[in-house]
């Protein structure tokens, strides 16, 4: 693996690092809010993956206008459009998760998962 490959794919490296960071937070957390943050980081890494794959070297936004030359390259807009949908889904998930956390806190008085489990065992 030479340096060009490492630098040339650097978007993908960021995607992988973010993905693993987010995934690790989700698995290793004890605090429900932190879980949601981890989930968000994880989802955002996938958004980056999509945006990266739509990008064409030297490409511009795919808008036709008179001054554009015939051999002008355009980036693929479809992944960005797909990711708009996925972002909406992500926002909805986060909102729902936070609403659930509010209710959990009202009922248990804590948002630490281990404390909740202890409370459940006692009841």
């Amino acid at each position, binding site marked *: 693996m030479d340096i060009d490959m490492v630098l040339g794919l650097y978007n993908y490296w960021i995607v992988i690092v973010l993905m693993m960071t987010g995934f690790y937070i989700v698995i290793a957390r004890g605090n429900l809010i932190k879980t949601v943050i981890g989930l968000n980081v994880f*989802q955002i890494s996938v958004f980056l*993956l999509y945006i990266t794959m739509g990008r064409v070297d030297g490409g511009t936004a795919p808008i036709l206008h008179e001054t554009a030359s015939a051999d002008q390259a355009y980036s693929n807009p479809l992944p960005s459009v797909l990711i708009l949908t996925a972002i909406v889904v992500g926002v909805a998930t986060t909102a729902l998760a936070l609403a659930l956390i509010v209710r959990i806190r009202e009922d248990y008085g804590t948002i630490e998962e281990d404390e909740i489990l202890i409370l459940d065992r006692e009841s």
Partner: protein
Amino acid sequence: MIEHLPVLTIAVPLIAAPLCVFLLNRTLVYLFALAVCWATFGMSILLLDQVLESGPISYELGSWPAPYGIEYVVDYFSAFVMLFVSGIGAVVLTYAPQSLNDEINPSKHYMVYPMYLLCMTGLLGICITGDLFNVFVFLEISSLSSYALISLGRSRRAPLAAFQYLVMGTIGATFLLIGIGLLYQLTGTLNMADMAMQLADDHDSRTTLVAFAFMTVGLSIKMAVFPLHTWLPNAYTFAPSVVTGFIAATATKVSVYAFIRIVFGIFTPQFAFDEHALDTFLVVFSLIGIFVASVAAIYQGNLKRMLAYSSIAQVGYMLLGVSMHNLDGLTGGIVHMFNHAIIKGGLFLVVGCFALRLQSVRLEDLSGAAKTMPLTALAWVLGGLGLIGVPLTAGFISKWLLLTAALENGYYLVAALMLASSLLAVVYVWRVVEILYFSEPSEAAKSAREAPWSMLLPTYALILAILVFGVWTTYSAGLASEAASSLLGGTP
């Protein structure tokens, strides 16, 4: 009008859902949602009828030709799954009002029905769409609404169960999204049929393999395959009875549908089973899941949790059928989706009747309830027979097909283990029967009354369907075998 049926089946419940919120009157909202559900069921019947008459339908959304536009595809398989999803949706909603009155604060009812409709829309959408990204979107529509529905349970543990499901479910859906992204990168298309064609000569690339792995694991979480099932018992136990009835009957089955579509429709069985031994893994995990979950079900003191574990075991049977990848096996897997949907739907509705009258679903509170609630108890017995797979019930048909398929492939050990696992089902079903019929009535059971007719009738509709489809298989096993042979490329 009739040519727009595919999109109407999705659009009607989708548009009706937000309208529900504006009808502030509880009864009005319910009647509206009920009408929409039955209309959707009617449209699914018409769709199936059309498919039977003139073959698969392809509908181009907004008249954009596939593969550029989004395509809706109705073939035997999707019409069959849509039929029972919308049918169970309609029956469960008919059953719903009294049970919801008891379990959810009436001032919140007008929010329950829209979410129910959205959940059904999502599940139907997964079935009908021919576009892979659409599968993800519909999966999230159904999942988000089911998280919200589960969190409405009476116990304070319901929001926590919903939260745990949300975390697992989102990871699963995001895995699916990664897989879709990689496939799009490889093929430049999102249309499933087009993608399969583009991939046909690109099976060796690592990207295909990684995409395949991500999608399999993502959907396995949604299907609750052992060992990714951990979200399911709590979610089913703490959700309101009506919600459990609907979700348990449909959600995991639709995920199995999506899985079958992706394996057979995009990657082809050669890639999945011959080159990458997915079948071995599926058989092993399904069998472990069947045994672990069935044994766990035996030791549960809560009726809902027992059925939840049993659901995990039953998903194992469906996947066993898929992993056989011969005609009988796949037919068995598909028909078990249908049979298990009516069986588990029916049984959860029975549990809802007990929950209404006894205010508990713990086994000790159920003791002797057969004396005061004979019809509900009888429904449990009939549904339980179906779950075990006794001849003349629907459960027998699917287990028979699976057994034939296992013997055909020479999987004698698998066949023997499947029979043995049915005995475990006998144990947990019988445990409840014994408590219902042969123990001293508990305080709650003594003063209980029979469940109201408005709930018993829908329950019996599903329970009797178990018996009907155990004898008359034209529209269950018959359709499933059509679906299976078209998935296997028309060569039985």
